[in-house]
């Protein structure tokens, strides 16, 4: 489903974020990408969404070379992916309900579908009470859960979670991880970037370890070792 082929990314001509990475992720896999801050996890995910371009190498998503997709077709790629961003990226002028509904609006879902699905997802992430609140009125953990709800709402084929538990307490962290596992069991590919040891070790799934822009370990049922 996803293939990185000898991908390198260099920022400002001397900061090497990714150094000749090759990686393949199959459909329905649950892959944790671990590493210290600045190891290149977020860059890897940005390349997959065509948010950044690699300096060399190719990135494939469902057999399409992501960098060759014309800008007007990029929305179609992005709609197949649900992303939980590290910094949430919520629309500040819209409330919780509208933020989640926006993705469905973008996809052209009918008003009935939106009215049916959004409350369900908000219930899953425990935000039914806060549906009218705007992002500024939410705690970090709540914003994170809105971001998760938004990533799930359109049942994407791939979910990319970039530090999705960074702002959650242990109780909610477990909930979210269980949710991601559940989604994965239902057939969605999940890529989880994190630097939390406990989460990764508890999952007992594939772990790709990055260090200074290189893959130093790639193990099925791996553990967080740095």
């Amino acid at each position, binding site marked *: 489903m996803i293939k990185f082929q000898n991908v390198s990314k260099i920022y400002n001509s001397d900061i090497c974020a990714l150094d000749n990475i090759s990686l393949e992720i199959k459909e329905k896999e649950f892959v944790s990408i671990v590493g210290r801050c600045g190891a290149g996890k977020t860059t890897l995910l940005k390349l997959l*969404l065509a*948010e950044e371009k690699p300096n060399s190498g190719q990135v494939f998503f469902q057999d399409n070379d992501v960098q060759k997709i014309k*800008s*007007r077709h*990029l*929305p*179609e*790629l*992005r*709609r197949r*992916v649900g*992303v939980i*961003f590290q910094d949430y*990226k*919520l*629309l*500040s*002028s819209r409330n919780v309900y509208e933020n989640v509904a*926006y*993705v469905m*609006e*973008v*996809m*052209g879902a*009918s*008003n009935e579908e939106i009215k049916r699905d959004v409350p369900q997802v908000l219930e899953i992430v425990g935000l039914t009470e806060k549906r009218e609140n705007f992002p500024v009125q939410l705690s970090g953990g709540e914003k994170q859960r809105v971001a998760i709800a*938004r990533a799930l709402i359109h049942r994407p084929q791939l979910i990319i979670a970039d530090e999705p538990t960074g702002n959650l307490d242990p109780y909610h962290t477990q909930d979210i991880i269980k949710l991601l596992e559940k989604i994965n069991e239902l057939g969605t590919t999940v890529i989880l970037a994190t630097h939390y040891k406990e989460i990764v070790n508890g999952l007992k799934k594939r772990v790709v370890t990055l260090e200074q822009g290189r893959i130093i370990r790639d193990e099925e049922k791996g553990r967080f070792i740095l």
Partner: protein
Amino acid sequence: MPIIISLKRIFNTGWKSFSQNIGLSVATVFVLVLIISLASSLFIIKDATQFVISDLQEKVDVSVYFKEDCPEENILVIKEKVEAISEVKRVEYVSREEALESFQQRHQDDEVLMSSLDELGTNPFLASLNIKSWQASQYASVVNFLENNGFEGQIAKIDYFQKKPVIEKIFSISSQINITGLILGLIFSIIALLIVFNHVRLAILNSKEEIEIQRLVGASNWFIRGPFIVQGIIAGIFAVFISVLIFGLGIFFLSPKIGEIVPGFILFEYFASNFFMILLIQLLVGIGLGVISSSIAIRKYLKV
């Protein structure tokens, strides 16, 4: 109907941000009202001057007087030749007797004139051709034709030269009004373009982060750009509404005064009968400016 749903959503989003940035929106609408009013005024002024000009032109003609000894047949031959000129609208022959008759009729109450005419004993009037051309600017060439085709010997005088200043004045006023209107219209349109452009530019810069997020969750280019164009359209529609109101009221109250300045031109009646044309011009100007300037701003500042 995904397209209709999307259009509806794009419109709703546009309306939302239009109403959220109310200060900026009011300023934009205000400027558009100025421009639309100017465009409509130009349209009305153009027609009003046209009315005045054609009214005056109807009154202006050139008379060619023939010498006393010039036989009527010769004059009628000249008349035919003049009629054949394409610039000439109509030619009227006035014989010496007819000229005398009409003079007598006009001044029958003026005893002094009548008695001096009697004392004269002969008919002092000359036969003439009254020539009317389609446009004031064409008289010169008609006169030129008469002077250079061997008719000079039979012609006593052409009174074009007495009327020439009037004719030229009409001509220059009408072209001046057109030119001034065009220049003013152009300047104001550029100002309006810049202001709407700036409105949309600020709106884009304000929501830079939102646009980035919309891109990342897979919104298509038009789903993101559409609302900004919609803002331009909404500003245009509001401006048209206000302009129509201002114009309707203004014209209703000004109409009698204009009627005094331009007799026969009833402004309100004119406005009422040309309402849809004026409305169309206003809509074209308002919405056109809104769409053009927001499109330019989007192209420049919204790289999706």
